């Protein structure tokens, strides 16, 4: 979820009048995923629809060019072959003004072929796109202090690699290269935002809330210094009433009697680096004469990069007619979503004098400039009825440090606050987020997105509360876990069944939990100096952003050759594999051709203001009358959105193709012959249609191959290609379409384009005017009301983890002996990919709990000296590689949708480990990571 102020809002607010220019160039702006051979063999998908390996497996395992980082100009068709290279120099202090760069160390030979400073950009009118979101300046202006540690001061471009390489070696780590002047005033921006979610139920979970964000409003405010200035309580507008509700909860806490446990705790969660192994990089070739900017850039948000680059360059003196953005496979765990780095690549291209130039971070630079996980300070209060063991209220004050550029910090802070309830039903809750700025390296989107910090803290505290109440930790959770239909802390009812009770029942019976006391006694008796503990963590994580849009096209030719095109691209999760598997699952045929990361969709001439979070209902009602309007065009690859949201577009397109092509074509074939053919004696209905083992069948009808049906669909001139656009605001948009020869159809999409088969009459073919497709203006549309923006979230996937650890009381070392996890994610599309996500998420969570740590400021990554020698990542020995297990709840039925689970899997293990340490040594830690030093101090 990414609620509240977004890049879009900032753009609207600060660049009104310019915003229309964002949509000026998309028609000439394109991006696509480069996929080079080797492609998988034709047998990669087994007859049962089970993939034998990932779609990208062979290319990746043989060292083929897959990542953006693997490509040079010589590999890109139409580009000049000579590759230029660039690197940047960075400010490592913010207290003194930037004066100059001293390149005398380089001598004449190694001087850059082009040096670019802030003043060059000013002269050429090149400005930051989306000011505020990406800060105010690319490079530190002379005479000013840096906004943040690690901010670039200069770009050095070399026409050849050898000189680039030699120069970079000479300059790096040398603190005399960037010259500073006198002390100067801080230029770090002020705090970024504050939001508060207050809820008081109506006496029961089912009753209408007395107050909630969904029913009333999210409370937002500004700052005095670093303190949010919340509105006064009152009975006037919704925010005042919300503050009155918050005051009521505060009074209840203050006046709590002996019948309740009031537990107050403070937690901190550290800044961390995603350490995506492919560091940020890009390659840009700008042709001034033609005004074409060619780029290959590693990003999770290609549409945004193309759009923003167009916005940025079109305002400058550099002529721009079109942008041709290519993307490779990448990985970022969120940190390549809306990062600023791609725009530095564009800058390099603009100043490379017609040469393709490559800007690629080394690992030190990656630590210095890549988006970080937010450090959180959390003050929490739990109010629990001692008799019932149930929550009466929970409050939390969350402060996250966004560093020196805003990026998604406000969104991360608010998402963290709305997730703080974890899996528990709270009759009263008050969660606030204060999103602060600092001179630290900027933080942004990263796997977990604020919820890792807040939910992990809640789960640590729940464990302590159970102990204080004298209740079994599982029993306490059971009494409070959300049941289906109960509201979340924003007052929204989560989608579908909530199955926490099933997970708790399985965890409680698991030998790790059931036998923990006996094993603790036995282990400690046999291992003097070693302590043994088992801990549990249970969370659920939203997936999606509250404004999820996607496009997918499926089309077949008369031989049955199927092509899948999709906005999704590959960030390692296997999204491209699973989209192909989902299409094959519905159509019974694997795509013969795939095209991912597609940004240019001429068949979808949609218009968007791209303000899905902030548009008023009145304005949206007005705009949706235009059948070509949509709240948002497409989403980045992030927020665990691929299988459910991006997959929805695939599934809707495939189902539409079944409805509009497969079923009528099959019926036509079965009806051949006298008297209505083989179909006539049977009452065959649409719901009888089955596609099994690649054969199309219904009731007793002769099974048909996809190729036979495809040929018939073309002969009849039926729909043979479908492109859909989908939109979800915690609920799906739906629309009706009047299709020639078919009538009115309703799908869970908001835009549709179709292609007609070869046999279609000329007048129908004449409708295919949009890139060879017929864009069908919708006859009616339903968009989820804008008030659902306040729901915060409705889609959750739950995960619980049991961790078995030992603590060496001498060294303080925590060793993970084993762990077991229980996940609920609906139907799995590719179980191997799900299992891989679980294992990888657990490793990242283990790193967060025990190892990974970054100081925020002068000693931190902004100083350019950090690498994996100091920032310890979990290795195989840290993760119980041979002794970890996981189970997944069976889906409710074959129609239980697949749920986004790539983030939730890393969270539960964090509190599980902390709670296990408490079990082992009787000490509770409230600050992560738990290092051996902290253990030794606690035991001293």
């Amino acid at each position, binding site marked *: 979820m990414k609620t509240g102020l977004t890049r879009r809002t900032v753009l609207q607010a600060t660049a009104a009048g310019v915003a229309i220019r964002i949509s000026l160039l998309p028609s000439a702006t394109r991006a696509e995923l480069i996929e080079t051979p080797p492609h998988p063999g034709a047998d990669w998908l087994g007859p049962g629809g089970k993939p034998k390996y990932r779609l990208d497996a062979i290319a990746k395992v*043989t060292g083929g060019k*897959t990542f953006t980082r693997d490509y040079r100009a010589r590999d890109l068709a139409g580009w000049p072959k000579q590759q230029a290279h660039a690197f940047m120099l960075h400010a490592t202090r913010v207290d003194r003004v930037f004066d100059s760069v001293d390149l005398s160390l380089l001598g004449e*030979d190694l001087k850059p072929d082009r040096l670019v400073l802030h003043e060059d950009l000013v002269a050429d009118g090149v400005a930051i796109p989306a000011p505020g979101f990406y800060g105010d300046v690319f490079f530190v202006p002379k005479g000013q202090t840096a906004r943040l540690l690690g901010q670039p001061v200069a770009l050095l471009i070399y026409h050849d690699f050898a000189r680039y390489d030699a120069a970079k070696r000479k300059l790096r780590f040398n603190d005399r290269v960037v010259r500073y002047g006198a002390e100067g005033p801080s230029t770090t921006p002020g705090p970024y935002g504050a939001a508060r979610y207050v809820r008081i139920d109506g006496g029961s979970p089912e009753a209408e809330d007395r107050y909630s964000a969904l029913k009333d409003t999210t409370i937002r405010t500004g700052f005095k210094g670093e303190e949010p200035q919340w509105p006064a309580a009152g009975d006037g507008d919704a925010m005042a009433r919300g503050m009155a509700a918050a005051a009521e909860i505060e009074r209840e806490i203050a006046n709590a009697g002996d019948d309740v446990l009031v537990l107050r705790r403070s937690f901190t969660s550290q800044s961390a680096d995603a350490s995506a192994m492919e560091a940020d990089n890009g390659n840009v070739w700008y042709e001034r004469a033609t005004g074409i900017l060619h780029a290959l850039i590693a990003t999770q948000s290609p549409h945004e990069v193309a759009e923003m680059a167009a916005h940025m360059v079109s305002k400058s003196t550099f002529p721009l007619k079109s942008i041709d953005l290519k993307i490779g496979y990448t990985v970022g765990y969120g940190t390549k979503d809306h990062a600023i780095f791609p725009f530095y690549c564009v800058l390099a291209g603009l100043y490379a004098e017609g040469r393709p130039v490559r800007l690629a971070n080394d690992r030190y630079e990656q630590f210095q400039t890549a988006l970080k996980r937010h450090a959180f300070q959390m003050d929490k209060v739990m109010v629990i009825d001692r008799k019932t063991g149930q929550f009466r209220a929970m409050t939390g004050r969350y402060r996250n440090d966004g560093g020196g550029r805003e990026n998604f910090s406000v969104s991360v802070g608010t998402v963290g606050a709305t997730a703080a309830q974890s899996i528990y039903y709270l009759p009263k809750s008050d969660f606030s987020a204060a999103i602060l700025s600092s001179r630290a390296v900027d933080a942004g989107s990263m796997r977990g997105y604020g919820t890792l910090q807040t939910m992990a803290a809640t789960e640590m505290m729940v464990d302590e509360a159970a102990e204080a109440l004298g209740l079994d930790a599982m029993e306490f959770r059971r009494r409070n876990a959300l049941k289906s239909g109960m509201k979340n802390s924003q007052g929204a009812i989560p989608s579908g069944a909530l199955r926490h009770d099933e997970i708790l029942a399985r965890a409680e019976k698991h030998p790790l939990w059931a036998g923990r006391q006996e094993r603790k006694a036995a282990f400690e008796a046999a291992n003097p100096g070693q302590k043994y503990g088992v801990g549990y963590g249970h969370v659920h994580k939203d997936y999606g952003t509250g404004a999820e849009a996607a496009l997918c096209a499926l089309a077949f030719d008369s031989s049955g050759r199927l092509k899948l095109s999709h906005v999704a691209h590959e*960030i390692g999760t296997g999204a491209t594999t699973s989209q192909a598997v989902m299409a094959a699952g519905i159509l019974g045929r694997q795509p013969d051709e795939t095209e991912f990361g597609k940004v240019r969709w001429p068949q979808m001439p949609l218009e968007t203001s791209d303000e899905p979070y902030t548009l008023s209902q009145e304005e949206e009602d007005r705009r949706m009358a235009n059948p070509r309007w949509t709240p948002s065009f497409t989403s980045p690859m992030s927020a665990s959105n691929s299988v459910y949201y991006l997959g929805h577009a695939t599934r809707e397109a495939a189902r539409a193709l079944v409805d509009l092509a497969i079923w009528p074509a099959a019926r036509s074939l079965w009806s051949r012959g006298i008297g209505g053919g083989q179909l006539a004696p049977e009452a065959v209905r649409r719901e009888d249609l089955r596609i099994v083992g690649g054969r199309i069948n219904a009731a007793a009808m002769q099974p048909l191959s996809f190729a036979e049906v495809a040929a018939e669909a073309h002969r009849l001139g039926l729909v043979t290609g479908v492109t859909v656009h989908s939109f979800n605001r915690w609920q799906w948009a739906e629309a009706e379409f009047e299709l020639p020869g078919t009538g009115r159809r309703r799908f869970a999409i908001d835009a549709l384009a179709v292609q007609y088969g070869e046999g279609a009459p000329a007048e129908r073919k004449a409708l295919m005017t949009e890139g060879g497709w017929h864009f069908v203006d919708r006859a009616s549309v339903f968009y989820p009301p804008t008030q659902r923006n306040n729901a915060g979230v409705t889609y959750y996937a739950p995960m619980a983890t049991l961790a078995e650890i030992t603590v060496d009381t001498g060294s303080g070392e925590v060793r993970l002996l084993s762990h077991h996890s229980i996940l609920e994610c609906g139907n799995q599309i590719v179980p*191997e990919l799900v299992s*891989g996500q679980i294992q*990888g998420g657990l490793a990242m969570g283990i790193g967060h709990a025990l190892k990974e740590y970054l100081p925020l400021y002068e000693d931190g990554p902004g100083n350019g000296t950090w*690498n994996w020698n100091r920032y310890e990542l979990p290795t195989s020995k840290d993760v119980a*590689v041979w002794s*970890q297990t996981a189970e997944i709840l069976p889906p409710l039925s074959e129609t239980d949708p697949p749920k986004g689970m790539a983030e939730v899997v890393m969270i539960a293990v964090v509190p599980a480990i902390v709670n296990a340490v408490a079990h082992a040594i009787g000490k509770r830690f409230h600050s992560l990571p738990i290092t051996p030093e902290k253990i030794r101090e606690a035991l001293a």
Partner: protein
Amino acid sequence: MTIATRTLSLTINDEAVGPIDVPETMMMQDFLYEYLNLTGSRMGCGQGICHACTVIVEKGDGSLEEMRTCITGAHWFAGRKVRTVEGHAKRDANGAITQLSPVQQAFIEHFSFQCGYCTPGFVTGATVLLDQLKRNPVRREALEGVISEALDRHICRCTGYVRYFEAVRDLVLRTPGLVKA
């Protein structure tokens, strides 16, 4: 230009390379990328920690050694036989892959990797391990420990290592002669 260069000749993936003038201080990784367009051995840390950049050096006695290219100069490899990740699978005359190596096959069947950035290092490390086990088989009960010891230095950020390790164990167990009876 004052960048000192030297002539370098070596064998990479069974093909003679060079003589080429290469800067004396250039790392092997950069030589592979920028001079030979072999970008499979990946830059991860540049300081020898993550092992995403490793290649195989085939020694005179036929045994294999794993070398980090990010901290080893290109000239160290002069005259040596090197196998990069691009040289493991069998290819036809046009360079198209006709057969994966056993390690590569095991990794794809086990869905061992996700983003795949570290995969070349794991292919290299596991191939060297199998070569060592062929020369010095281990007892079955020691196998997991041997795999951990050999591959723990390889960092993977996506997978949690499990599917890599299980693939190697599976391959070792079904390859005759690697585990003592």
